[in-house]
């Protein structure tokens, strides 16, 4: 007795089962629905238009006239604040300067009874003793006395101990503590060509190296000496949609230095120079002074030697302000992405789709790739247009835009496009899970746009708002940050000023993780459920 067995059914022709065919099918579906193509076009258009409109509404003026502020640029091309009092002598290409700092004291503005003064206004009537955390004084070697020139400094601060700082953005921590007559702090800078080394000591005999700075292209003769400066004080008392109101104003720091010794000087006497602190300075500062009695120098200054970062009360805008329209584009992209899957359920097409390519994971992957690709393309085109047009409008309206490197600009364009793509995938996955486009769209908007709104309008206290921006998909906006968060600048830079609690790629990774989790959930449900 022979049992005849039917030959095993041949698998479907390779072309039907292959991923490429599924991908092609999904691309055809997308391309042939006019509403979706229009939706993506609308996404690109609103991204540009909303950006332009917000730029058009950002007229900046100083008492009715266009603002004329000086914006020094540092050696790295970044905007810097370079305002301090400098007591200096010329120094040759090899040499050193040593001094003992016996005290760092200062004055802060006194908030009077009705003294709700906006940060950015002139000196206060009353001052009381006190230091800002980043008030600083010490030794500095600087290429010349122009604002923005290369420098290296070893210094003591109000609350952050001794530091070595150079070229505005670099900051290295040294031994802690604020100097006092009983516990002075010795500082030394040595120069060998382009290399400057900073040392600190408690007694003037046992030195520890704080850091080494390389300042390429330093001229043969530089200026070496003592300095003091103190950043503006500001306390934000209320933040809301109508903007910040706070108390604040310029502050002063005085450093007392003795045992000053120089090696390798070219002939010359000590000269006191005030850098910045004029009317055209963007951030408030008072003129400084110096006083020499015996071997003791007392240097008093106001301002800062640091990167000019947003949120410090300065008038600058960050480049990502031109991309506020991407939020509108994101909504359009999310709507199309959710419909890309829910429309199949609505019209029953999903049954045909699943019959044609039974591997549901492949269908989901193909859909995700198609929607991500078209969203990325729309976002890329929109951002590439919105940034130059938007910055033109902002500049024409009298705004100062912080300069950024080309690499940052590329990251801004590509990152915005990538953010739209990942948000589209998130919406697609939620749509596959819920099968209801309205709920999927609402969830994505509530997860991306609402936290951003809450952060921008300071609905929550800063701590809670920052945690929200770390955890929810809105963290992805960090990819749009153009000016880094500098720890050596204590400013009130929040989401509204273009600063995010996470680093750009870390924030983007949070968004990607949410999208990946949603895709996994969608895959699980697609496999388990009947279509």
């Amino acid at each position, binding site marked *: 007795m022979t049992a005849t067995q039917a030959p095993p059914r041949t698998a479907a022709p390779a072309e039907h089962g292959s991923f490429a065919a599924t991908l092609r099918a999904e691309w055809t579906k997308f391309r042939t629905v006019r509403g979706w193509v229009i*939706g993506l076009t609308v996404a690109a258009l609103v991204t540009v238009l*909303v950006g332009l*409109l*917000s730029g058009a*509404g*950002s*007229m*900046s003026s100083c008492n009715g006239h266009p603002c004329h502020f000086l914006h020094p640029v540092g050696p790295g091309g970044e905007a810097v604040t370079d305002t301090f009092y400098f007591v200096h002598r010329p120094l040759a290409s090899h040499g050193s300067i040593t001094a003992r700092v016996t005290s760092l004291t200062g004055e802060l503005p006194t908030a009077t009874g009705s003294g709700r003064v906006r940060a950015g206004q002139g000196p206060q009537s009353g001052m009381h003793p006190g230091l800002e955390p980043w008030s600083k004084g010490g030794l500095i070697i600087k290429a010349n006395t122009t604002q923005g020139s290369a420098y290296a400094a070893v210094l003591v601060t109000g609350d952050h101990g001794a530091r070595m700082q150079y070229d505005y953005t670099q900051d290295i921590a040294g031994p802690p503590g604020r100097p006092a007559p009983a516990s002075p702090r010795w500082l030394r800078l040595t120069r060998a060509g382009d290399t400057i080394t900073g040392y600190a000591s408690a007694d003037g005999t046992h030195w520890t190296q704080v850091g080494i700075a390389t300042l390429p292209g330093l001229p043969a003769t530089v200026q070496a000496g003592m300095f003091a400066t103190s950043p503006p004080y500001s306390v934000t*008392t*209320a933040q809301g*949609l*109508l*903007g910040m109101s706070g108390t604040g104003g310029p502050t002063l720091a005085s450093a007392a230095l003795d045992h000053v010794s120089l090696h390798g000087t070219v002939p010359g006497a000590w000269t006191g120079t005030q850098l910045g602190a004029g009317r055209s300075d963007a951030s408030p500062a008072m003129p400084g002074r110096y006083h020499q009695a015996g071997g003791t120098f007392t240097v008093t200054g106001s301002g800062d030697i640091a990167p000019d970062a947003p949120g410090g009360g300065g008038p600058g*805008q960050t480049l990502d*302000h031109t991309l*506020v329209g991407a*939020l*509108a584009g994101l*909504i*359009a992209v*999310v*709507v199309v992405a*959710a*419909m890309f899957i*829910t429309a199949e359920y*609505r019209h029953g097409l999903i049954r045909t789709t699943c019959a044609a390519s039974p591997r549901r994971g492949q269908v989901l992957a193909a859909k995700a790739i198609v929607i991500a690709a078209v969203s990325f393309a729309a976002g890329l085109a929109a951002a590439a247009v919105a940034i130059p047009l938007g910055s033109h409008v902002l500049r024409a309206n009298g*705004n100062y835009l912080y300069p950024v490197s080309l690499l940052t600009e590329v990251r801004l364009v590509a990152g915005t496009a990538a953010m739209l793509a990942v948000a589209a995938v998130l919406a697609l996955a939620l749509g596959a899970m819920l099968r*209801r*486009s*309205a*709920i*999927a*769209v*609402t969830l994505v*908007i*509530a997860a991306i*746009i*609402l936290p*951003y*709104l*809450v952060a*921008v*309008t300071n*609905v*929550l*206290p800063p*701590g*809670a708002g920052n945690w929200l921006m770390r955890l929810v998909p809105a963290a992805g906006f960090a990819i749009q940050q153009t000016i880094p968060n500098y720890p050596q600048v204590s400013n009130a830079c929040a989401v*509204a000023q273009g600063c995010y609690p996470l680093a750009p790629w870390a924030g983007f990774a949070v968004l990607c993780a949410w999208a990946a989790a949603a895709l996994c959930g969608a895959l699980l449900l697609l496999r388990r459920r009947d279509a």
Partner: protein
Amino acid sequence: MSAALHAEWTKLRTYPGTAWLLLAVVAVTVAVSAAAAASARCPAAGCGQDPSKISFTGVDLGQAAVAIVAVLAVSAEYSTGMIRTTLAAMPGRIKLLAAKAAVVSVLILAAGALAAAGSLLTGWLILPGHGFTRAHGFAPLTLADGPVLRATAGSVLYLALIGLLSLGAAAAVRDSAVAIGLVLGVLYLLPIVAAVVSNATVRRHLLQAAPMTAGLDIQATTGLRSLPLSPWQGLAVLAAWAAGALLAGGLLLRLRDA
């Protein structure tokens, strides 16, 4: 009209998502309000915060669920083709929209009242422990206080007006995803644009015109003078938006084939 109301009530009542969504309105509003109250701190007198606004923070998110309820009340009929049966049975299209608006409003007013009461309760329970005390110049959050009563009732009305705005938008664009995107875009994007715009005058006008920021002025109990609009003026702006959306929706409903 009573037949129309009855029909709409039956449809909305038997739609599988309605009860869950209304529950979501209450739960989300109260939960977010509680979280906002828990994270708020008032260390000293004159901390410049508004306990009423904090207590009703959840409305920011709860309105999204309200928008879904209202949008689906219209769009669901289009996605299933039910609209053709509805219109055959009830040819007066404006009457249909009015019946829908009435039923949706009643449901949202009921859910909104629960949500607002729950939010107020969490604020009343949590905020005094976080420095919002009489010593710091804050009266207890109770309905006996005139401004708090106005904020509470206003939050309920705000949600109902958001529902009407969404209903009108859905009648105009028909598709649920597009309608919800449009509504949430108008609600959430305008305040963001206002925050980014650097010119104070433009910003103030945007805040006066945007339905969300203007409407939410009704929740303020402190610093009323610095508001871009007075509380009731703000709610009137939102009502104008809702009326505009209903008008547009009704007009398109009349003019178009279903």
